[in-house]
């Protein structure tokens, strides 16, 4: 599953679209950035409500190609800019982290 396809599955709008539409290895769901640093694997989409610039720094460091912002949280402009610089996709959905994780799990493994 590629990033744009994933965005469709979780009813997300693409907020930062300057990225390579890479194949996703899966997802990691967490709002604690240290937990993401410790456990997320490269190639996984980061599913979170932490919509700020530091989320992009974490995604870049662990090699997450996409950030899924849940619950329709507002995405600040400096976050979008940072993600554009790093070529990381930001998509936003009104769904919760639970629903996003469930839909992606079903699509990838179900």
């Amino acid at each position: 599953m590629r990033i744009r396809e994933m965005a469709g599955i979780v009813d997300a709008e693409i907020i930062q679209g300057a990225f390579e539409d890479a194949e996703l290895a899966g997802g990691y769901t967490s709002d604690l950035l240290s937990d993401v640093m410790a456990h997320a694997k490269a190639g996984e989409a980061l599913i979170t409500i932490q919509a700020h610039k530091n989320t992009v720094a974490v995604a870049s460091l662990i090699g997450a190609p996409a950030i899924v912002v849940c619950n329709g949280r507002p995405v600040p402009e400096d976050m979008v800019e940072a993600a554009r610089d790093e070529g990381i996709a930001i998509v936003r959905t009104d769904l919760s982290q639970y629903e996003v994780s469930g839909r992606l799990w079903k699509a990838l493994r179900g």
Partner: protein
Amino acid sequence: MATVPIPATSSPGVVLEMLYSMRVKDAMTGDVVTASPSTSLHEVQALMREHAITGVPIVDEGRLVGIVAIGDIIEALDARATDARAMERPAREAMTSSVVTLDDEMPLSLAVTYFDRYKFGRFPVLDSSGRLAGIITASDILRRLLIALNEEIVRMEQRMAGRQRATEGPVPAVELSFGTAPLDFSRAGNVSQRFKKALVERGCPPAIARRVAVASYELELNQVIHSKGGVMILRVFNDTIEVIAQDEGPGIADVDQAMQEGFSTANEWVRSLGFGAGMGLPNVKRVSDEFSIQSELGKGTTVRAVIRWSKE
């Protein structure tokens, strides 16, 4: 709105920080030469000469009621041509009674602004109960700033000496170092991204670069969240990569406690951003082949994390 007459955006943060963090009472002279409203101008002039000052606050039962400046004395001396007793008049008749004052808890930056705005040579300083607490002149501020700058440079020299000690032994193939600033979340993570890019550019295996990134990110964020600022150093040797995080305090009260997963002293605001989960130092230790931490309250914390290249 009047501001400090140095550019706030391009000046070194350390100077602005000094002006904003120091209070008027840190720079003022507390031992003020005063006179009462009934003191004659002649006596006021004698006080000025004796103490080499150019203004005398006039105080009535601890309350500031006015100020006699050297200009008022000169006027009275001139007036003797028509009034022989001009210098015998009481201070209350010659003083300026609408005095611009500063509060002792105001930041020093405001005092600088006042000197810029009012062109007076001195400002009486009042405490929270409105009583005269001191007096401040431009040279008081200059002297205090020089002392503070000197202290800061001593700290910088100590920091550099510390870094030189750290670089004894084998010479690294690559050495990078960047400073961090307290609570500057807009730049937090930049140092770790630079470290990771430097490693990837040099052909470091992704799994190793990832471990270095985890260690440096957690240490960098610790400095941003908890310290007064510090320096992050990356040193690449033939077989190891070292991340050193050195900060200037406040130090960790109980290092064993800080190493426990889940323990954190971060405030609610920091936690709401997804930090301060108490996983930082344990994460660093977990990804490191060697890990050491030294901390002293009031001095600072140094963490050294070593990751071996060979271990895939």
